[in-house]
């Protein structure tokens, strides 16, 4: 077992996971549900849609796709750095 290269790898990996989950929580449960009323009233509208409503029906889904793209890119880079990547 090569624990020396495993530990930093796992630490970075968890850091990526937790930051992305924070974004995930913020856009869906945060903007879409918990602070929706505040956003509807105070944030600039997206086109003609109230911001909170738009986040719940469109913005959150678009962000989810971006989260996964970022995750795949960062993780595949990290794998390459630690020599874990395999040919596709």
């Amino acid at each position: 077992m090569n624990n020396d290269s495993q530990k930093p790898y796992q630490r970075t990996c968890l850091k990526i996971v937790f930051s992305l989950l924070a974004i995930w929580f913020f856009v869906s449960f945060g903007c879409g549900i918990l602070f929706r009323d505040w956003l509807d009233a105070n944030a600039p509208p997206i086109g003609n849609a109230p911001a909170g409503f738009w986040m719940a029906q469109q913005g959150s889904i678009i962000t989810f796709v971006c989260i996964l793209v970022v995750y795949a890119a960062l993780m595949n880079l990290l794998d390459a750095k630690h020599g874990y990547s395999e040919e596709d």
Partner: protein
Amino acid sequence: MTQDTLNFIFIGLSFVLYIGIAIKSRAGSTKEYYTAGGGVSPFANGMATAADWMSAATFISMAGTVALSGYDASRFLMGWTGGFVLLTILMVPYLRKFGKATVPDFIGDRYYSKVARGVAVVCAIFICMTYIMGQMRGVGVVFSQLFGIGIPAGVLIGAAIVFFYAGLGGMKGITYTQVAQYSVMAFAYTIPAIFIAIALTGNFIPQLGLVGEYTAGHSPVPFLEKLNNINIELGFQEYTSGKMSKINMFCITAALMCGTAGLPHVIVRFFTVKNVGAVRKSACWTLLFIAVIYLTAPAIGAFSRVNLIEKLHETPYAETPTWFRDFESTGQMAWVDKNGDGKIQYFGPARSAAGTSSVFQGKAPAYPAYDAPEKQRVGVNGERLLANKADETNPNELWFGNDIMVMANPHMAGLPMWVIALLMAGCIAAALSTAAGLLLVLSTSISHDLMKKIVKPGLSDKEEMTYARFASFVALVVAAYFGINPPSAFIAKTVAFAFGLAASSFFPTLLIGIFSKRMNKEGAIAGMLCGITFTIGYIIYFQFLGGIKEHYFLGITPEGIGFVGMLINFSVAFAVSKFTPAPPQEVQDMVENIHIPSGAGEASNH
């Protein structure tokens, strides 16, 4: 050429395509049968997973739900897409690294226990069975409308087709079929939306039309503002603000997300790609393909609501469009002329003192027998009369089923016949692809997890395949039976059940299994059992034993209780594992090992 002929041609062509693909790529070994030999490209797997994930119910009724409840329907939009973030970031790369073919396999090995494996098999079978029943019903309904045959015959045709390519072709067969099915679904869903967006908002991108202006009237007004005004004027809640409580909205969204991440038929899809890097790419494609449909649904919902009201409200029956009469004759729309003015009125709860908006008494429309005197069947305006008594506490006269919005949309917008035929083909593709994916998980759970791992360990590869095909046949017969004789309201209600079950059982157990080395079999089994029992108990009490709304725990409906069940699972699992011995060293090493993405054993040498 009539609409029926065109429907036949489109659906017939799509079937030729699916079956051709299935024959070309049928499975030869158990590895190909279960996971397509692990060599599917991330792009193709993404499309196939998207098709697998979007069921007939999603395809047909999600936009209808959005149209009816506006903002409140966001829980489905976010729940069913956000779950993929959890699935991708927390689960599938690790499960793929573990490298077994099924979810009970992982639970059985990680918790070094046949009991855990058995519990997992039962959960998997139950979740998949609930789902597949609904799919078979959906196929039956579409076929019966298409060919003018009864629903039972429609279900049987659907079952035969699914068995042909899922039962025989295995994962390899269905993966490539699902790629074709996704393409059909995506076109069928977006093309009508584009036409309608142009007609209503002058913008050919539906999502931009939704936030744009309504241009079909005298002068352009913001589209959502118009929709809000119509809704309030007719006595419904404002479209962009919901009436559901925040905590309930939160719990349901969370239960749907965690449930998504724990659904066995979605997880196994990611075992078909080559390695962990490919799993991550594949998940991106999957969510992207799903987002195409989920981002269009809110637009379709909003457009069809405006269309429906503009076309029908205050319209004399004699001047209603032909599609209204068609849906009336199939029993999906109904009109009761309460005030006797010969015009259709559509009103919400706020327009009556009693706060109701039901058109008639009873849940679904009932009709007089065919041989009843004509006076009982046809009203003075020529409308189809109901056997139900009118509900006179409110002025609403228009009833329609939740599921017709997507199907009626192209009719309402006066789109060409081929668009409607394409939509029919898309709907069948949605039902078939999901049914096939579920059938596969069911048959592997039985042949692999139950027969090979628990009952008869010495099974050869060939015998296992025979069991798998036999199991898929039996599962399909059971599913077809329930598709023909649905346990009444049971199926619609068990959708929440299946998600709650997955959220309160698989999701926490898999998650702790991946991220905690200390979790032992006692904790996992106790957690799974407590989570499931609580969730099932709550759902059964409030759905079937007549529990009343006022007694809901914190006002959470049974739809969202899976989230609470999940929290219970987590707490019980950690508490029990604290007081019981740690898992054996080799299991702890295994957990350590699944966090290294590259091939087992070689990792440290690079």
